[in-house]
């Protein structure tokens, strides 16, 4: 078997393990699905009248507007949950056993990220299904839905990279878990839940430069109006930036982990 094929097998096996792990533990799956779904329902019902505000972009409903935000939230929390699970593996010595196995080290991280990306894909499908069931239309049609799914999956991979880097560096599940509030802060300071123009300062200015705003707009456009090249490219650039950051941090953290044991 070629090196590439055997590495792919390792990545697939570790990815499948991380997905099974998430679905077996309520404390891991709950933040990815239960909380964002609950918040989607509450925010749609509670702040839905916001679409009547002057300056709100033309949308079919607030639910349609919110779908991208909920996918982003689930994707971010999937990255965080992936980091927690990775840290638990380090604490329990499972990762040490993998380090001793004759497999490339990067495949260990990649396996975890593959699992996180799969959870991002699941979250995107989940929220699109919820949107369609409750009457939201996808203006970009099937290509628009596929684009939104692809962007969320890639984002999960990107954010998962940062989660994995922190897990490798700290080796502590509680440290990664401690990032949960930070995830919410970063989300609130983006245009995930409301149009940036209608946000209150200083949140509005921060949202303008927050990379997550670019991603969320790239996911939202195909849902509320159709595929738009500018928004898509901005989202891809933001995701690529986070992936590079995650790769650099993960590589350094992996070296640190191998050094300290």
């Amino acid at each position, binding site marked *: 078997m070629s090196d590439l094929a055997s590495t792919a097998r390792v990545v697939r096996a570790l990815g499948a393990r991380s997905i099974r792990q998430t679905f077996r*533990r309520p404390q891991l799956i709950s933040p990815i699905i239960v909380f964002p779904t*609950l918040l989607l329902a*509450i925010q749609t*019902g*509670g*702040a839905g009248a916001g679409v009547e505000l002057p300056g709100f972009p033309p949308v079919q409903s607030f639910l349609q507007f919110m779908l991208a935000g909920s996918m982003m939230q689930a994707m971010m929390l999937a990255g965080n949950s992936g980091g927690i699970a990775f840290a638990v593996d380090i604490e329990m010595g499972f990762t040490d056993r993998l380090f001793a196995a004759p497999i490339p080290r990067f495949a260990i991280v990649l396996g975890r990220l593959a699992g996180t990306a799969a959870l991002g894909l699941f979250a995107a499908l989940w929220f699109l299904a919820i949107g369609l069931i409750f009457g939201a239309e996808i203006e970009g049609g099937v290509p628009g839905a596929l684009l939104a799914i692809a962007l969320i999956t890639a984002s999960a991979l990107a954010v998962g990279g940062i989660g994995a880097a922190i897990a490798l560096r700290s080796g502590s599940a509680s440290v990664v878990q*401690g990032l*949960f509030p930070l995830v919410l802060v970063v989300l*609130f300071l983006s245009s995930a*839940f409301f149009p940036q123009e209608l946000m209150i300062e200083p949140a509005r200015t921060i949202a303008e430069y927050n990379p997550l705003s670019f991603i969320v707009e790239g996911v939202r456009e195909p849902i509320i109006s159709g595929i738009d090249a500018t928004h898509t490219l901005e989202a891809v650039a933001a995701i690529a930036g986070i992936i590079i950051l995650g790769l650099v941090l993960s590589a350094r953290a992996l070296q640190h982990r191998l050094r300290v044991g």
Partner: protein
Amino acid sequence: MEATATAPAWRANLATILALMARTRNEIIRVPGAAIPGVLAPTIFFLGLNGVFGALTQLSGFETGSYESFIVPVSMLQGAGFTGAAAGVNLARDYERGWVDRLLVSPAPRWVLLTGNVLAASARAFVPATFVLAIAFALGAQWPGIDGLVICFAMVAATAAIAACWGSMLALRFKSQSAAPLMQAGMMGLILLTPAYAPLALLQPWLEKVASVNPLTEVVEAARQGFVGSVTWSGTWPGLLALAGLLLVLGALALREMRRTNV
């Protein structure tokens, strides 16, 4: 043989409750970091919701022009919900470590053990509530008056007690910290399926229906009244009644689980 003098039952029960409350207080003093998530979560929600949905006050039908004033009681109640649910998570942790077994073989009645846990959560809820309120005042939230403040904190303490009963019930049923998301999501749903983000008339029809039958709606309205207007008895008693009813039902269910728990 000479009979030994024993303390009256009520005094022993009170001492047990105070000891359980002191244990929680010690936990905060010795591990202050453990209290951070409970303080941070409602604060982030308060700041986040204020920044994101602050423009909603421009809609006609909003009773105040200050979203900070409108949302701060909800964030305080949310902090109480998190704190109460955390009491359930801690009980599950204590069960996993065998501490609950030791309590159960003690001569203390089950209701005393439950009361200690619940009152400790109520007292602990003042920490996040005070923190969020201080931030809200710094951002310009309206002063609710002494009566409004007292009512708001009373609602916070009672909501924490309800959440602790709910969390304790689940902790004793599942006997695992894995039930934590259910404890937190349950309380979060109960508190936010109310006119939390906007007045009842501005909610979407489905949420308006849910909120109008959710007993926590009365609690939110009672806690909020001083921040958005004046305090009245007619705005207060439905909240007190709702809390009493919830406390009775969830307290009875938690006690039933505690009585069913065998060593």
